[in-house]
Each structure stands twice: as structure tokens, then as C-alpha cells.
């Protein structure tokens, strides 16, 4: 029992550190990548290659005053950033970084992640509403509509995956994909539409995390900064960290469900490195997309979900069910 408590504390610290470090260094990665895409250099003054820049930014954020504007709902206003951050960290608990490196290998891991991930939108809604700012309220309304629309195709795709894998345990799902040909993205024997399912999942996770080209709820040229317009200091910082944590979660799930998780295709390094390599490749793509495409329209976004993604994912669900029954 003692060792179990130590284990939980160790993993708690590890998960929070991982989430915070990721948030900090994904900002650095994003800035560097954006800079190179745009033929600039990016941060370079603080530390080698600007590597200490996120630390300095973090210190700056933490030392700033938290402004609570007049007219806001004081409790909800403070609660929202916390609600944005905590569920994101909770999701990390069941992510298997390698076969052993998982905080809690629970059988309902996948379900738990989705349960916690959907709290995020509540945080955006509360933050936008409590801010008593018109831009923030519009943004919150957009965020909810968008999340509702994209939760559906995402969950349908996940149900398809659960039907194929037969388990909700993430570690078991990874264990079923030992080499590249057995990665679920290429498992055509389960359904010929597996790459499409991956694409749907990826697009939905972009939309769920409010990343460009679906960043409508924080569209800076329309809504200034969206739901976090009124937030300063670490209030903003927590939203920010929560957003990056969600990107990591979304990409991790894509890696686990479709790209073989910690499975090592060539036998070069231990599994955890493979997991991180795959994860950061996906995150790199997420950032790459952001700095390439303009933003979609809101109705275009909803049309994409309701008219294209949901029918395709439903069709895929039926097809997979048929395949499972027949073969």
C-alpha cells in the first residue's frame, strides 16, 4: 500500500511536469516552426536556440497580476482556467507511454479520457460567460457548438475502434499492433476505410482542441482572443497550458489507436522513445497545419462535421460491423 501511494504521487508529479513542460516547449516548438515556415529565425536570445524562452515567459506570466475586471462572475471567472487545466492533466493518467510507464492502467482508459476531455468545453463556456465580455460570449457559444459537432464523429470513430480492438484498455490496444503492417491505420482486414477513420479522428481532434484551421473560438482577427480575452497572468497561462495539454492528449490517442503507440517498428530504442517520436511527429503536423491554412468559416466547420464527417464515420461503423461479422 505504501508503495502504491508513492507510485501515485510519483506519477502525479511526473504527469503534471510532463504536461507543463510540454506546454512550455510546444510553445517554443511552435514559435520555431512558425518562424522557419515564415522564413524567420524565431526566439534566439534567451539561451541556446532560445531554449530558455519558455521559462522566461512562464516567469513573466506568473509574476503578473491577475486582473479580475468589474462585472465578471468572480467565482466562475477563477474556476474556468482551473477547469481547463485539471481534466487535461487527468487524461494523462491512463496514457501508456510505454508498456510499463503508465500511471494507472485501467480497463476503461479510453472512456475515462473522453469523459475528462469533454469537461474542457465546459471550461471555455464558463470562462467566456463569466468574463462578461461580448467577444468572449460569442467565442464560448462557438466553442460549444463546435465541440458538440465534432464530439460525434470522433466518438463514432472511437466506437469503431473499440469494436475492432474489443477493449477499452489503451495498453491492450497498443499491444495488438506489434509491427507497422498491424497498426490500425493500415489494418485493412478490419475495414478498408481505416486511413479515413484516422483522418476523421485527426481532424476531429484538431477541432476539439480549437486548433487552426478550426480555431474559431479564439479567432484573433474576429474575436480578439475569444474566451480568454479578459484573462491575464496565469489565468491565461492555465488556458494556454490546457490547450497544449489537449493537443498532446489528442495526438497521443491518435498514436495509440492508429499508429501503434509505444510499439517499436524497427527495434532501435525502447518503446517510450517511439511513442514520443510518433507523438511529436503528429504535433509537428498540427503546428504545420496551423501556420499554413487560413481559418474556416463557422458554418463551413459545422457543415464539414454534420454533412461529411458524421456520415462517413457512420458508414465506416456499419462497414466495420459487417466485416467483423462476416470475417
Amino acid at each position, binding site marked *: 500500500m505504501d508503495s502504491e501511494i508513492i507510485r501515485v504521487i510519483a506519477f502525479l508529479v511526473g504527469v503534471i511536469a510532463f504536461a507543463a513542460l510540454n506546454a512550455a516547449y510546444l510553445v517554443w516548438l511552435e514559435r520555431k516552426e*512558425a518562424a522557419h*515556415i*515564415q*522564413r*524567420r529565425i524565431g526566439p534566439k536570445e534567451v539561451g541556446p536556440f532560445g531554449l530558455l524562452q519558455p521559462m522566461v515567459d512562464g516567469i513573466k506570466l506568473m509574476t503578473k497580476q491577475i486582473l479580475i475586471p468589474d*462585472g465578471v*462572475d468572480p467565482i466562475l471567472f477563477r474556476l474556468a482556467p482551473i477547469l481547463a487545466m485539471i481534466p487535461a492533466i487527468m487524461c494523462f493518467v491512463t496514457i501508456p507511454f510505454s508498456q510499463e510507464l503508465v500511471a494507472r492502467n485501467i480497463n476503461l482508459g479510453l472512456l475515462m479520457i473522453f469523459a475528462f476531455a469533454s469537461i474542457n468545453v465546459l471550461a471555455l463556456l464558463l470562462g467566456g460567460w463569466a468574463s*462578461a465580455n*461580448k*467577444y468572449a*460570449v*460569442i467565442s464560448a*457559444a462557438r466553442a460549444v457548438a463546435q465541440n458538440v459537432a465534432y464530439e460525434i464523429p470522433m466518438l463514432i470513430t472511437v466506437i469503431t475502434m473499440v469494436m475492432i480492438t474489443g477493449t477499452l484498455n489503451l495498453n491492450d490496444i497498443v499491444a495488438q499492433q506489434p509491427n507497422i503492417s498491424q497498426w490500425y491505420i493500415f489494418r485493412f482486414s478490419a475495414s478498408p476505410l481505416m486511413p479515413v477513420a484516422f483522418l476523421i479522428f485527426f481532424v476531429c481532434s484538431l477541432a476539439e482542441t480549437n486548433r*487552426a*484551421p478550426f*480555431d*474559431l473560438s479564439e*479567432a*484573433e*482577427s*474576429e474575436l*480578439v482572443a475569444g474566451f480568454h480575452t479578459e484573462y491575464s497572468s496565469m489565468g491565461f497561462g492555465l488556458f494556454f497550458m490546457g490547450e497544449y495539454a489537449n493537443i498532446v492528449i489528442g495526438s497521443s490517442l491518435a498514436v495509440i489507436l492508429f499508429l501503434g503507440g509505444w510499439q517499436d517498428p524497427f527495434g532501435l530504442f525502447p518503446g517510450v522513445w517511439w511513442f514520443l517520436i510518433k507523438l511529436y511527429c503528429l504535433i509537428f503536423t498540427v503546428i504545420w497545419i496551423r*501556420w*499554413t*491554412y*487560413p*481559418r*474556416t*468559416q*463557422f*458554418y*463551413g466547420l459545422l457543415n464539414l462535421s454534420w454533412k461529411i464527417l458524421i456520415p462517413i464515420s457512420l458508414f465506416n461503423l456499419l462497414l466495420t460491423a459487417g466485416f467483423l461479422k462476416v470475417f
Partner: protein
Amino acid sequence: MSHPLPINNQESFVLNLGPQHPATHGVLRVKLTMDGEYIMHAEPVLGYIHRMHEKMGENRTWAQFMPNTGRMDYLSALSFNHCYAALVEKAMGIEVPERAEYLRVITVELNRISSHLVWFGAFILDLGGFSPLLYAFDDREHILDLLESVTGSRLTYCYFRFGGLYNDIDENFVDGTREFIKTMRERLPMYHNLVTKNIILIKRIKDIGPISKETIRKYGATGPVARGSGIDYDIRKNEPYSIYPEFDFDIPVYTECDSMARYMVRMDEIEQSMRIIEQALDKLPEGPIMAPKVPKILKPPKGDYYQAVESARGSLGMRAVSDGTNKAYRLKVRSPTFSNLSLFSEVSEGMLLPDALALMGSLDLVIPEIDR
């Protein structure tokens, strides 16, 4: 707990877009009456950067006002220079040497390209695409360097003089300009691949913000906004000034009337401006760059004079009333964006906020030029 949003008793609310908002590129403020995300009424509120240049024009001598012209439209300052110089030359009957006219056309067209590049970047930025802005600024930097080498400034040029120019160009400018045109010709297809053919962008601006021909005429909109609605109206062709008739160039006209058409007009104009510059460089004659006998103190004869030029944003007009003294009795600047923006209120009615911002971006607003 108080909420500023009327939730139960009223359907609409007022949203103040600006004067400090990322999409208004400066200090334009638009008072939007919204129903959800739909705009019921939009009322632009101007004057945040009003400097009363016209009064300054009455209190300065004709020559002293020249630097003011570059400060009205900071993106195509040379067009304003050109308009004012041509106006006073018209009033005084000063003949400009041929070489000076050629150099005027070259520099004005370079300035037009740089203005369109800034617009291109800023427009895509309005639509949420960040990177094209920096590519466009990269190209614009070449133009600014070129113009700096000949005019001495990078943004608010004061290069034209009555009867000619302040400075002659050198070899480096000619080579640099040719080099720039070469690189720009390679870059334009890249812009089209990256931006114009992008499905998200097409969906954002195609059929968005249609402006009918009649609306254009009723509001006196000109420039790329008019040409995007199928109106073949360009002062350079319709009311030729300087030596534009000597050059072979086309006026891009699109009939779709939407934001995409206005976008395409400007992109095509970059190519047409390069054609003009190339021809001008080829034909560039030797000779003086200043008219020989320009009086030190200008006293245009009594009467009023009008001069129109095509700036990057449309028909720019200046009306001077002279009472025969060394200062203008009245100097009116007709800035194109002032008229172009005035139709925003009518066209944006019933649009969604992001679409209205796409429309506003496609109008190519430069606020100091509206407010003067």
C-alpha cells in the same frame, strides 16, 4: 451579478469592433448591432486619426504641403505625391521632362505593388492565415529598399517635386528593379499555390460580400473594389495622365462582384504593374529630371483645378482652389477608401461577423487616408 448582454428582453446587442481591434488595421471603429453572429446594422465610426491635412494645406505654401501628401496614405504615398504634383503642375502649366515622367511611373507602380502586397498579407491575416503576411512583407522589403535608395525614405515618401523629381536613379536601382521583377514573377505562382487555390480560402471569400454594380456607382466606389464588380474603370486608362498611354498594360476586371474577385483583381494588378515597370525601364530616356524654369514661389492663377490619379485603392482626386497667392485657398482631397468604406454599412447587413470581416478586408482600408 450583472451581464452586459440583454438576454431576455432584447434580441440584439451592440458590439464595438475597434478602434483597437486586430481586424480593423488601425483605428477604425465599427459599431455593430448584432443578432447572435449576424450583423443587423454596421456603422463605421471614423476620425480617430483625423489630422485636418486640408487646413494645413491652406496654411502652407504649395511646396510645403508636399510632405503632407505622403502621410495620408502610408501604403501608396507616391500616388498622393503624384496627384498633388500633377495638380500644381496643371495649375501652373509646368511641363515635366520625359525622364521624370518615366521615373514617376516606375516608382508609383513599385509603390502600388508594395501596397498590394501589404494588403494581400493583411487580408489573409484577417482570414486567419498568418504565414502569407510574412512572405508578402519579405517581397515588399525589396521594394522598400529600392525606393529608399532613390527617394530617401521607406514609407512616407516625398519624392516628387513640381516639375520633376528630387533625385535621379542610378544603375543599382535599375538592376535591382529588374531583379525584383524576376523574383516576384517566381513568387506570384507560389502565392497562388499557397493561397489562391486553397479550398478553405476559396470558401471563405467566394460569393462573400457581393457588391452590385449599382451599389458601386451609388456610393462612388472605385479602384479594385469597382473592378471586382465588373466595372472597367481605371484612371490610368479612362482619364490618362502622366505617360501611362505609352505603356501596354491591361486592367484586370472580374465580374463576380465578390471578395474573391477583388482579391484576384489586386493579384493580377501586381503582374500588370510589373509589365509597366519593365516597359518603362526599357524605354527610359536620358535627360533632365527637373523642368528648367520652375518659379521659386508658386502662384497658380485664380480658379479651381482638379486632378485624379489611380492610387492603389482607387480614384484619388485633389481639388485646389487658388486665389492667386502662394498658398492654396482650399485644398480638398478625395480619398478613394472614404467612398469605398461608405458602402460597407449597406453591404454588410445580414452578414455573419467573419464574412463581414472578409468583406472589410477586401475593401483594402487604410485608415489615415480615410480620416486625412
